């Protein structure tokens, strides 16, 4: 019985890790390229959940279809926000940038309270209760969906960063922004592009997590903590690292809940993060 339980828990944890990876990828990009923490990252994920909820409840658009609308919209929002709202704070100092994103985070949380009330919401669909048979195990469909979309997003970003001029410009700027400028790269636009991509993944993560768990205006902070954990576990600048960071965090949380007590999940997660960073400060695959 124990191997069966263990197998199921490992499978659940790994699948959940895919969703965690999507939560973390935007933060990893922004932190890796711009060397700054976007404190509003969790609230932007939550914005994805709430907008998908709005599209579902008012226009009847399925959350998975809403990704097609939300992903490009989030990219444009992120690009414009960085280009015209956050570029001056960033040039002035990293601390001011972080404060500005903290302000955005508080504004968004209050908007959610005003518009959608403090009550929990959920993206209720007919497939939210489906389950899939994987070998001998039965797992929720949304977990598998989270995992597959996570892989798709990570592969897309990896190829974009490796194969396109814009992706290479992002990588070059993250390594040496002065030399990137010497190459003819407008690093202000690269930062905006990076922030746009960070928000694009936040929007997708918002829809996926909204399909998986209920959410309320204060949930954004929990997402920020998960993103932070994924990034420090996986290491900056590696798509595979981000994915592994998500899987490790997912496994630790599910295994703790199954074999100890759900109340110990956060404790166990951060114990693992601390031990791993003490032994390997750059994360599993960080540069």
């Amino acid at each position, binding site marked *: 019985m124990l191997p069966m339980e263990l197998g199921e828990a490992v499978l659940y944890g790994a699948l959940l890790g895919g969703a965690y990876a999507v939560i973390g990828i935007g933060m990893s990009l922004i932190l890796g390229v711009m060397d700054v923490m976007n404190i509003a990252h969790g609230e932007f994920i939550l914005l994805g959940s709430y907008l998908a909820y709005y599209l579902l409840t008012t226009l009847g658009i399925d959350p998975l279809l809403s990704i097609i609308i939300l992903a490009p919209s989030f990219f444009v929002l992120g690009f414009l926000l960085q280009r015209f709202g956050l570029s001056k704070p960033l040039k002035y100092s990293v601390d001011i940038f972080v404060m500005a994103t903290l302000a955005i985070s508080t504004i968004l949380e209050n908007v959610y309270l005003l518009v959608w009330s403090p009550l929990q919401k959920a993206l209720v669909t007919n497939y939210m209760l489906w389950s899939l048979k994987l070998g001998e195990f039965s797992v929720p469909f949304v977990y598998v969906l989270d995992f597959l979309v996570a892989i798709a997003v990570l592969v897309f970003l990896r190829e974009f960063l490796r194969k396109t*001029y814009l992706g290479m*410009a992002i990588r*070059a700027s993250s*390594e040496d922004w002065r*030399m990137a*400028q*010497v*190459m*003819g790269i407008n690093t202000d636009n690269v930062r905006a592009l990076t922030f746009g991509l960070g928000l694009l993944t936040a929007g997708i993560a918002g829809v996926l997590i909204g399909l998986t768990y209920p959410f309320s205006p204060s949930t954004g902070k929990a997402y920020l903590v998960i993103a932070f954990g994924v990034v420090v576990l996986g290491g900056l600048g590696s798509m595979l690292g981000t994915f592994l960071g998500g899987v490790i965090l997912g496994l630790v949380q599910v295994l703790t809940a199954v074999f100890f007590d759900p109340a110990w999940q956060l404790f166990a997660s951060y114990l693992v993060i601390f031990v791993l960073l003490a032994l390997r400060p750059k994360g599993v695959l960080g*540069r």
Partner: protein
Amino acid sequence: MSEIILRINNLTVYYGRLEALHDISFDVKKGEIFALIGSNGAGKTSTLSAIVGLVPYRGNIELLGEKIDHLKTYQRTTRGLSLVPESSAAIFSRFTVLENLIIGSYINRESKNDMLERVFSLFPILKERADQMADKLSGGERKMLLIGRALMSNPKLLLLDEVSLGLSPVVTEKIYEACAEINTQGVTILLVEQSIWKALEKADRACIMEAGKIVKIGSSAELRDEELIRKAYLGL
């Protein structure tokens, strides 16, 4: 040879309260190799940094008759300037050799393949190492990569900062041979060099700098014959 490609007028650079360059002026003619010569702290690298817009300055800089002071670094690159920095650490170490070259063609994408061929014919070793990570290259190969990367934008004026620094005489000679070939292909070169012998041998004209000021400007032949320079710098 007489058209001016770069004109520097009354250029002054400060780092905090320290004056690194004091009111220098000189011209670089189209098609020539022009050298800035001087010891450490003479202001050579500060001059190049100001030209590409990496440090703030007073005075003005004209490229092909157009004032470029208001332009940012990346815009100056699009006007035809390309810098080869002194430090080998300026390669993108998390890129492969080929990726380093490709990012060099960021503003010249349509000619990427032609420029790659040109760079590989100048430095065949880079073709052999194309798929290696750039941080695995030797010091000389890194310099070749930096020059190749700078060429990929098809510049009008190539700024070379101490390309011979830390290299063996054989490698230095190879790199200077490649620079001469680049120059014969129509690229004007402004090079910075500590070795006055090397600079006067390679350049058409030169400017000798000391403590942020210009001491002497002239053709390499004239400077070699100057009594003061023969005594003070060449030890003759």
